[in-house]
């Protein structure tokens, strides 16, 4: 595969080894997901060239950036990347405008594509241009850092948990911009995160990192629907659905969505009928019943087939269901499983308590 980022890194990392081999598609957003200290940031730093692994191979679309066998290492300033750090790392002695233009000024004319104005507009930072970094909030700093990386005209944008240092309110402030960036720019992004909800909102592709190794990789929706991976144990585990709006109910302030396996009623979505909406149904919000339940407050009850089950210890388990070809996850207790005598192949009813909008 030539239009991918291929990598192989091996180096000691505290108590274990970073020992990663893999490929990352050069399009859309790829998340490097794993718990804190699993080596995902080290992998990102190796890709940027900020860290030199003893044994290393890295190439972007066939162009070699690092090959320890041949003694070749391209330093970071020659790699045409953008890097966004957790805390922004703006240059404190430069105004926002000069921070933004730092990489831009060093980019050869024929490589420049976007302009300062476009980026300023994309990230809504025009009121900040004449300020110094010390006069910005955490969220503003991060937007400027993203703009600075974009204006470096990168072939690859690397982001190291760009929202980890922000509180919940400021995260909400940044997420829409990341989603906008995803839609409006075609720079491939590699995004490090340990927050599954964040990843589910912006990623297309996911590499699961555990103890310094790439444990699994694939398209986001496939990865989120697998129950054999540690992702399924995450509090926020849940399947993705690509749906479109078929109807609005103004009386009850509800919207009706259709997907290949059925229809769902959700809270009002402020988009016209026909629009695509990606939603996520958390496994913890799905409960199971053998018979169609009687009168209930739950709006979405869909017939489904049990396909797989996996116990997770501490009395909990995750059940994978099939909704007319689309996977749905449900988290139940092992006692419930025993009570209902659930087995793969059984017909049951999935009751969906709530639905999260994704993109």
């Amino acid at each position: 595969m030539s239009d991918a980022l291929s990598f192989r890194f091996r180096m000691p990392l505290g108590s274990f080894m970073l020992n990663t081999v893999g490929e990352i598609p050069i399009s859309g957003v790829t998340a490097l997901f794993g718990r804190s200290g699993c080596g995902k940031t080290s992998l990102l730093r190796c890709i940027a060239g900020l860290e030199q692994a003893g044994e290393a191979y890295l190439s972007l679309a066939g162009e070699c950036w690092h090959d320890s066998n041949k003694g070749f290492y391209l330093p970071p300033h020659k790699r045409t990347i953008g890097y966004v750090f957790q805390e922004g790392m703006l240059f404190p002695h430069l105004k926002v405008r000069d921070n933004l233009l730092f990489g831009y000024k060093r980019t050869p004319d024929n490589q420049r594509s976007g302009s300062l104005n476009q980026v300023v507009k994309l990230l809504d930072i025009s009121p900040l241009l004449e300020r110094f970094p010390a006069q910005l909030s955490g969220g503003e700093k991060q937007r400027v850092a993203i703009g600075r990386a974009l204006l470096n005209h990168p072939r690859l944008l690397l982001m190291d948990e760009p929202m980890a240092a922000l509180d919940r309110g400021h995260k909400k402030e940044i997420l829409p911009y990341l989603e906008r960036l995803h839609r409006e720019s075609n720079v491939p992004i590699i995004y490090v995160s340990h927050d599954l909800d964040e990843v589910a909102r912006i990623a297309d592709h996911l590499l699961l990192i555990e103890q310094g190794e790439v444990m699994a990789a694939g398209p986001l929706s496939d990865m989120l629907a697998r129950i054999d991976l540690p992702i399924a144990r995450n509090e926020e585990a849940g399947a993705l659905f690509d749906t479109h709006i078929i109807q609005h109910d103004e009386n009850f302030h509800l919207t009706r969505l259709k997907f290949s396996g059925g229809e769902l009623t959700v809270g009002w979505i402020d988009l016209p009928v026909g629009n695509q909406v990606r939603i996520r149904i958390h496994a913890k919000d799905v409960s199971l019943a053998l018979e169609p339940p009687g009168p209930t407050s739950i709006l979405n009850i869909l017939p489904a087939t049990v396909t797989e089950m996996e116990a997770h210890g501490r009395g909990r388990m995750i059940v994978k269901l099939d909704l007319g070809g689309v996977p749905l996850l449900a988290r139940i207790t092992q006692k419930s499983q025993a009570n209902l005598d659930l087995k793969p192949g059984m017909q049951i009813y999935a009751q969906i308590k709530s639905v999260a909008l994704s993109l």
Partner: protein
Amino acid sequence: MMGPDDLAALWVTLRLALVSTLLLLLMGIPLAWWLARSTSRFRTLIETLIALPLVLPPTVLGFYLLIALSPSGFIGGFWQAIGGNGLAFTFSGLVIGSVLYSMPFVVQPLQNAFAAIDRRTLEAAATLRASPLDCFFSVVLPLSRPGLITATTLGFAHTLGEFGVVLMIGGNIPGETQVLSIAIYDHVESLAYGQAHLLSAGLLLFSFLILFLVYRMNGTHLLRKESR
């Protein structure tokens, strides 16, 4: 009033301080950068050597320099071999002595300023196409401005006030190696208190003024104020 010898001493002093400060910065900046970033095991050794003039009596440094600078000495011999005219009791010898003597006053503030820069700020510059040298001039030096000002001033002021080393290796040749501090000593020896007062008060006022200006500049510097 100041005699011709006093004026000559003033001129030698200023020239010595300027030349020494320039050389100190040229050598001290790369040295301090290396000390701030290196993990080499020679680092502690170099740091110790540079700090020695802080604790040694100037006469000790002066004594060894005198031996090294003499025609049969390590540095003086080399100097003559390449066609120089001898270093002991010359202005060039004084510059060598001053540079060694004032080195800790220049290197230490610079090293502290460089060490205070977050490694990730430099990494950010590297990911934005800045080569290490570019990064040094466009990020490291501007961020170290207060340290640079302090180092320059201390280097300059310390050379101005030097006495022991100069006396040992430069002697007291008017117009060549006689600096203000030695001229003052001469006046006191010959009981010419009026002239000693004039030079002493002048040096006192001058030193006070430059230190005051530097502290004010550093105190009101934008970076300092904003990092609070």
